[in-house]
């Protein structure tokens, strides 16, 4: 059985579900109960598009314990068509080849081998376009 914490985040982490405000159209990832832009409380569920633009990145050399084995690893923020920005690891590319402004694609991967929650965590990572 999945721990509740993993199950709860599955729509976002596994299916990239976002919430689009029915009133003003603002998009939030993950979902919210009230729109940060207009205060409306009803949303449509949409999916974040698969390709985003990298707006900044870093290479982390001193991670928390559950990421020790992968260190150093790149972490970036991508901006997507819907207006949402997402933080995730940038993988399958050498650090020297990562450039701000490049397009990256979202893929489903194992993220943590064993977090403080004591479970294997799966979710999205950014990879280069094929």
């Amino acid at each position, binding site marked *: 059985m999945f721990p509740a914490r993993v199950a709860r*985040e599955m729509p*976002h982490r596994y299916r990239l579900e976002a919430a689009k405000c029915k009133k003003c159209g603002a998009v939030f*990832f*993950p979902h919210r109960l009230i729109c940060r832009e207009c205060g409306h409380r009803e949303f449509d569920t949409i999916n974040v598009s698969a390709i985003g633009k990298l*707006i*900044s*990145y*870093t*290479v*982390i*050399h*001193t*991670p*928390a*314990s559950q*990421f*020790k084995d*992968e260190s150093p*690893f790149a*972490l*970036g*923020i991508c901006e997507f068509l819907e207006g949402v*920005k*997402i*933080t*995730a*690891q940038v993988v399958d590319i050498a*650090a020297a080849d990562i450039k*701000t402004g490049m397009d990256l694609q979202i893929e489903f991967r194992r*993220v*943590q081998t064993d*977090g*403080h929650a004591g479970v294997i*965590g799966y*979710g999205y990572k950014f990879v280069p376009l094929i």
Partner: protein
Amino acid sequence: MRDVAIVGVGMQKWGELWEKSFRDLFVEAALNAISDTKVPKIDHMYIGCMTGGLFVGQEHVGSIMADYLGQKHLAATRVESACASGGAALRCGFIEVASGMSDIVLVGGVEKMTDVSGDGATYALATAADQEYEVFHGATFPGLYALMARAYMERYGATRDQLSAVAVKNHDNGLNNPNAQYQMKLTVQQVNESVMVADPLRILDCSPITDGAAALILCPLSRAKEFSDKPPIKIIGCGMATDSIALHDRRDLTSLDAVRISAEQALKMAGKKIGDINVTEVHDCFTIAEIIVSEALGMFPAGKGALACVNGETRVEGKFPINASGGLKSKGHPVGATGVAQAIEIVHQLRGEAGKRQVKNAKIGMTQNMGGSGGSSVVHIMEVA
């Protein structure tokens, strides 16, 4: 609202204080603050602490600290806003005295960070970020500020040397602060060549892991003379604001809106403009933070903060002296205590007792204390009453 004054301050030399426990750290600073005054007893106490639970397995911070401070049954409230916990505690204490609910309030801050491993501290600090949408993916605090640093450098053409200049300046100031954790001079080259933590940030861009506490005593300004012969320091402005917890949800990675808004509130309340401020302590948890904060406070236009530091404008003798104490970078950063210690430095500056790091003719001072990657900010403005 009643006028409120700071009449006493206390801390200890910060560092890796292995022989001092969580409770002893706090009590030592609080007793030093009490000894700086003639107050007969404390009416209420606010304690800034980010995460006693993760660093030392101790919550219920108000109870344990009132107990070990020897103040039987003293009501005590612990306040948290990540690394801005101390500033948030000061805001609560200010309001408590201003309201008339209490006359004598002790505001303290404490963090015992070296009882856990380096990994453990990285985990504990990361709980100030979005656990599910940043930390889960591997974000650390240096990592988040590194994302800001790269965006800033690429947008404004800031250089590696310019980041390093902030660390060099703050270590120069810290040399003159006997309570600073690291009293050592740095060169730009040393910072540039130090170990990489989160590209582009290196270890000497980062504030250290620190054990420490700080405390001050507030009372109504009308009673200040009863409790101290030193000049009372009046709190004339107080601002606080939040922003999205996740860095990626901000409108812009190179701005700090919570800092800007909290400063605007405090300046408005004080009836002052940024140009009226003689001395400022800001939250330089990383070199890039001091640069962006100095812009958010209105001292320099966006993109010009890095150059302003290089040009000496933020040195003790500059137009906007920033972190005369050495800042978090040299003084140390026991997260819950930092905001309170910033106010202590301003008190020393306004009293004219800051020694070699004294800013000349300092009449009005400001503190800016930040939580997380900019998810909260607290600003206070003080003047000699």
